[in-house]
C-alpha cells in the first residue's frame, strides 16, 4: 500500500512537471504576443498602415560576352525605368488619386504613352501587388520631367536596372542572340529555378544556349516605402541578399573574321556565311541575312515590330546559318567524289564517257551545266570544272547506299551538335526515305543522278557545308562545331566531343579531293576566290530550287597546305556560285591574308575538343 502511494505521489510530481512546462510554453507565447502587440504595436501599425515593407529585387547583371581575343561583344548598361508601384490598401485617398483621370493624363504624357495602356498596366499592378514598368530606358529629358513631378504623382518611381547592350549592333546578331524580359508562361515554368518577374532570359543564340551560365542570381532587400510609394529606408530585420553576377563567356568568334564576313555580305538580301577553324571546329564568324539589331529587344519591342522581325518572308530572326536548309548543289560533288574514291571503284585517274553537254539515262536526258560539254576529264578535273555528266556516271556506279553513307559521315542530314539553339538537320535521302515517300520500289534510280550533283531532295545548312570544307581540310578528322571557348569562373566547362565519328579514307583519296578543290580555285569555276600568295581550295555550287532563282554557294578553306579557316557561303536566289558567292569568299580571304595585314595570323587556339581518341570510320 505504501509503495502504491509512493508511486501515486511520484506520478503526481511528474504531472505537475509536465503541466508547468506546458504552461511555461504558453506563457512564452503570451510574452511574444505582448511584445509584438503592445510594446512594438506602434512600429508594426505604422509598417502596416502608413508605410509598408516591400521586397525589392536587386537584379543580377548577366555575364558579358567576348570574342576570342577579348574584344567585348555584349555587356550591360544601366536603364532608367519609370515604374508604378501599387499603393497599400489603407491609403484609399491615394488610391483614388491614382485612378483619377488627371493623374492618368499626366503620367501618360510624362512617359509618352497612351493613357489606355497606362491604365491597363496600373490595374494589373494593383491586382497583383507587383510593380509595373511604364517606360523602359527613359531618356534624360523624360527622367528630368518625372523627377520634377514625382512628389505630386503617388506611386511613380524611377528605378535603375541593368539591360543588355550590344555595342556592335547587328554584328553577329544571330550568333549572339538576344535576351528579353521573362513572360508569364516562362515564369510559371521556371520559378522553381529562381526566376522572377522582370528578369531577362536569353531568347536565341548564345544568350539562350548559355542561359544557365550567363544569368546570375538575383539579390533582394526589404525596403520600407511610404504611402506615396516613396522609399523611406531599408528594413534592418532582413539583411539584403547580394546579387551574384552571371559568368562571362569567351567565344571562338574572331571579330576581324566576323567583320570581314559582315562586309562581304553587306549587300545580300537573304543568305548566310560561316567561317570555322578546321583545326578544332571553333566558329570564327557567322552571318545571316537579313539581320536585326538585338539592342531593339533591350528597349522593349512593340508587338507590331516583333511581328515584323519574326514573320514575313524574310524573317530576320531566323539564323539561316544553322536554321536555313538549302540544296547543296555542286558543293556536294566533294562528297560524291570522296565516296567513289574511297570505295575503290575508280582511281583518281580513271575516266568515264566524255561529257557532250548531256547524259541519257532511263529514257531521260540529264544536262550538264555547260551545254557545250567538257569533253574527257579525270577526277580532279571533273571537280575543277564541276562537270555534271561525269558525276552522273559516278553516282550510278556508286549506288545510293554508299553515297548516303558518305554524306552522313560528313555530318550531313543530322545536327552538327553546335552549341546554338534550334539547329536544323537538313536532309540526306536514302532508300528508306524514298520508300516511305513514294512507296517501296515506286521510285526510279534516276534520283541518284540528281543526288550525285547535290540536287534532288538533298538539304544542308550553311554550317554543315562549312563543316564539310573543314573536314576535307582536316582529312576526315571529326569536328564538333562550337562557338563558346570558355566560361570564366566555370573551369569545368569544355566543348563537347564531336557528334560524328569522322570520315575514313586513305591519304591518297584526300590528296586527290584536295587537289581537285585547289584546281577549282586556281583555274576552274572558283577563280574569283583567289588570294595572292595563298593557295585556296574551294568548290562552287549553283542550286536550283523551287522557290525562284538559283542559290549561289561556295565552300573553301585556306591556306591549302595548312588550313586555318574554312568558309561556306549561301546566297539565296542570286545566281551562280562562281560569280556571286566565290567573290565574297575571295574578299574575306584577301582581307585576312593580305601581305601587310596583321590579321594574317589567325591565332591558333589550344584544341578544346579532344578528337585523338575518336575512332576513324563511319
Amino acid at each position, binding site marked *: 500500500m505504501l509503495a502504491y502511494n509512493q508511486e501515486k505521489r511520484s506520478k503526481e510530481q511528474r504531472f505537475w512537471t*509536465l503541466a508547468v512546462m*506546458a504552461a511555461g510554453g*504558453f506563457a512564452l507565447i503570451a510574452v511574444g504576443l505582448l511584445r509584438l*502587440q503592445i510594446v512594438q504595436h506602434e512600429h508594426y501599425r505604422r509598417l502596416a498602415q502608413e508605410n509598408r*515593407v516591400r521586397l525589392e529585387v536587386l537584379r543580377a547583371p548577366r555575364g558579358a560576352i567576348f570574342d576570342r581575343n577579348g574584344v567585348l561583344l555584349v555587356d550591360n548598361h544601366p536603364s532608367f525605368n519609370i515604374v508604378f508601384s501599387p499603393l*497599400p490598401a489603407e491609403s484609399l485617398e491615394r488610391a483614388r488619386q491614382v485612378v483619377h483621370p488627371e493623374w492618368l493624363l499626366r503620367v501618360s504624357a510624362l512617359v509618352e504613352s497612351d493613357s489606355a495602356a497606362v491604365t491597363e498596366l496600373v490595374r494589373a499592378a494593383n491586382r497583383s501587388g507587383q510593380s509595373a514598368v511604364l517606360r523602359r530606358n527613359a531618356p534624360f529629358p523624360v527622367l528630368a520631367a518625372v523627377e520634377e513631378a514625382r512628389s505630386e504623382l503617388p506611386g511613380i518611381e524611377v528605378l535603375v536596372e541593368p539591360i543588355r547592350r550590344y555595342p556592335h549592333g547587328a554584328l553577329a546578331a544571330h550568333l549572339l542572340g538576344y535576351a528579353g524580359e521573362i513572360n508569364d508562361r516562362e515564369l510559371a515554368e521556371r520559378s522553381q529555378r529562381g526566376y522572377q518577374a522582370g528578369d531577362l532570359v536569353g531568347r536565341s543564340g548564345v544568350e539562350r544556349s548559355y542561359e544557365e551560365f550567363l544569368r546570375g542570381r538575383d539579390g533582394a532587400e526589404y525596403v520600407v516605402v511610404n504611402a506615396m510609394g516613396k522609399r523611406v529606408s531599408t528594413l534592418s*530585420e532582413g539583411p539584403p*541578399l547580394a546579387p551574384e553576377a552571371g559568368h562571362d563567356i569567351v567565344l571562338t568568334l574572331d571579330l576581324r573574321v566576323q567583320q570581314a564576313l559582315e562586309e562581304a555580305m553587306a549587300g545580300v538580301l537573304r543568305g548566310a556565311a560561316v567561317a570555322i577553324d578546321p583545326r578544332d571546329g571553333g566558329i570564327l564568324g557567322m552571318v545571316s541575312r537579313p539581320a536585326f539589331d538585338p539592342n531593339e529587344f533591350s528597349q522593349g519591342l512593340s508587338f507590331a515590330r516583333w511581328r515584323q522581325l519574326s514573320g514575313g518572308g524574310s524573317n530576320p530572326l531566323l539564323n539561316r546559318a544553322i536554321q536555313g536548309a538549302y540544296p547543296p548543289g555542286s558543293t556536294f560533288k566533294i562528297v560524291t567524289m570522296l565516296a567513289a574514291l574511297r570505295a575503290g571503284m575508280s582511281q583518281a585517274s580513271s575516266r568515264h564517257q566524255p561529257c557532250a553537254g548531256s547524259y541519257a539515262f532511263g529514257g531521260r536526258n540529264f544536262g550538264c551545266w555547260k551545254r557545250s560539254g567538257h569533253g574527257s576529264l579525270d577526277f580532279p578535273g571533273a571537280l575543277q570544272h564541276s562537270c555534271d555528266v561525269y558525276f552522273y556516271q559516278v553516282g550510278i556506279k556508286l549506288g545510293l547506299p554508299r553515297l548516303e553513307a558518305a554524306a552522313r559521315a560528313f555530318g550531313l542530314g543530322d545536327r552538327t551538335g553546335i552549341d546554338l539553339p534550334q539547329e536544323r538537320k537538313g536532309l540526306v535521302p536514302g532508300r528508306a526515305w524514298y520508300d516511305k515517300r513514294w512507296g517501296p520500289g515506286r521510285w526510279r534510280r534516276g534520283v541518284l543522278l540528281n543526288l550525285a550533283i547535290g540536287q534532288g531532295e538533298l538539304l544542308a545548312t550553311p554550317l554543315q557545308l562549312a563543316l564539310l570544307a573543314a573536314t576535307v581540310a582536316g582529312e576526315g578528322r571529326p569536328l564538333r562545331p562550337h562557338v563558346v571557348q570558355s566560361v570564366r569562373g566555370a573551369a569545368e566547362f569544355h566543348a563537347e566531343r564531336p557528334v560524328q565519328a569522322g570520315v575514313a579514307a586513305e591519304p591518297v583519296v584526300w590528296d586527290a579531293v584536295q587537289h581537285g578543290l585547289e584546281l577549282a580555285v586556281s583555274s576552274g569555276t572558283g577563280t574569283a576566290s583567289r588570294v595572292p600568295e595563298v593557295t585556296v581550295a574551294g568548290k562552287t555550287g549553283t542550286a536550283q530550287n523551287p522557290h525562284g532563282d538559283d542559290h549561289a554557294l561556295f565552300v573553301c578553306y585556306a591556306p591549302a597546305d595548312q588550313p586555318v579557316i574554312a568558309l561556306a557561303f549561301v546566297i539565296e536566289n542570286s545566281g551562280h556560285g562562281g560569280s556571286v558567292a566565290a567573290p565574297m569568299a575571295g574578299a574575306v580571304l584577301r582581307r585576312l591574308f593580305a601581305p601587310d595585314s596583321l590579321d594574317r595570323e589567325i591565332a591558333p587556339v589550344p584544341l578544346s575538343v579532344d578528337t585523338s581518341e575518336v575512332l576513324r570510320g563511319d
Partner: protein
Amino acid sequence: MATRWKLPAFDWPMALAALGLVVIGLSTVYSATTVPGAHQGLWVKQLLWFGLALGAAWLAVSIHYRAYDSLAYPLYAISILLLLAVPLVGISAMGARRWLEIGSLRFQPSEIAKIAMVFVLARRFDDRKLDLTRFRHWFPPLVITLVPLVLVAREPDLGTSLSFPVILVAMYFWAGMPPGRLLLGLSPVMNVALFFLTGSLWWFGGVFAALLAFVRPKWSTLLVFLALNGAVAYAVPSLWDHLHDYQKRRIQVFLDPGHDPHGAGYQIIQSRIAIGSGGVVGKGYLRGTQKGLAFLPMRHTDFIYSVVGEEWGLAGALTVVLLYGLVILRGYRLALLTRNGFASLMAVGLVSALFYHIMVNILMTIGWAPVTGLPLPLLSYGGTALIVNCVQLGLLQNVALRRGEY
C-alpha cells in the same frame, strides 16, 4: 422509473475547447480567403472535412484502447512501410516528397507513424518491472523512434521528424526515467544546439558541468558522456568547416530565416507585421489588411494564427492560447487520473505531440521559431491534418471514457 439519461463521461472541457478552436479555425479560414484572388469557399470544404473528422474521432473513441495496445506493433510496421513507400511513389510539392495518394485522398504517412509510435512506446513502457536506467529497457524505444525520425527527416520534413523525439522524451519521463538521466541523455543534442545558437562551446560546457553536479552519475556513465560530448564538441566545428557553402546556408536559414529574404524570411516579417499591427483588440473580423495584397502568404494554412492576431488582436490570440492550454492540461490530467498504464502513457504521448505542433507553429508566426511548414492543429485549413488531430483527441476521449478501468 426509467434511469435518468447521463452525459457520457467524456472530458467535456477538453472537447468544448477543441470545438471552439475548430469554429475559430473555420471562421478565420473564411476571413483569410475573402481577399480578391484567393480560393474562396474553402471554409465550406473545411466544414465537410470536419464532418469526416468527427466520424473518424467517433471510431477512435468507440474502439476500446486495449485494441490499440494489442495492434501496436502491426500498426507501427505498416506505418514504416508507408514511410518507405513515400520516396518511391510519393507526391512531391514545394521541394519535398511527403505525401501518399490513395484515390483522391492525400495524406502524410508521418502522421500515422506518429500515432503508431505512441502505441508501441506505451505498450513497451506499460510494464511493472520497467527500469529505464537499464540499457535493454531504454535502448529499444530509442531505435523505435529513430527509424521514423530518419525516414521523415529525409523527405525532407524536419519539423515533423522532430516531433518523434519530443514524444519519446515525454514518454520516457512519464514512464519513470529519472529527470537527471534524461537530461544527461539529451546532453549531446543540447551540445550541438547550443553550439549553433551561440557559436561557441563554452555555453554548453557550463550547462553540462551544472548538470553533472546535479545528477552525480556513476563513474562509468560519467566517462561515457564526457567522451560522447567531447567527440561531439570536437566533430561539430570541424564538420561545419567541411560543409559546402550551400549546406551551410541551409542550416543558417533554418536558424535565422532572415538569411532567406525571398522565402521564409519574408513570410515571417509579414506575419509579425500582421500580428503586431493587430494591437490589443485587433482590426476586427474580416477587416485585416495584411492578409490582402498577397502580403501574408499561406494565410489560411501555416500562418492562420497571424490572421487571428491581426483581426482579433491580443485578446483573440490569447483566447486561442488559453483554449490550447485547456486541451493540453486536461490531456495531461487524464494521463494522471486514468488507472490503466497503457492508456496513461498513450495520453501523454498524444498530448505532447499536439503541444509540440502548437508551439512550433505559433512561435513561428511570431518569429521565434524557424519556418518549418507545420500547420496549426485544429485551426489551419487542411483536411487530413484535421482528421488526424480529431483522431488524437478521440483517443484521449477514449481514455476519459474508460478512466476507471485497469
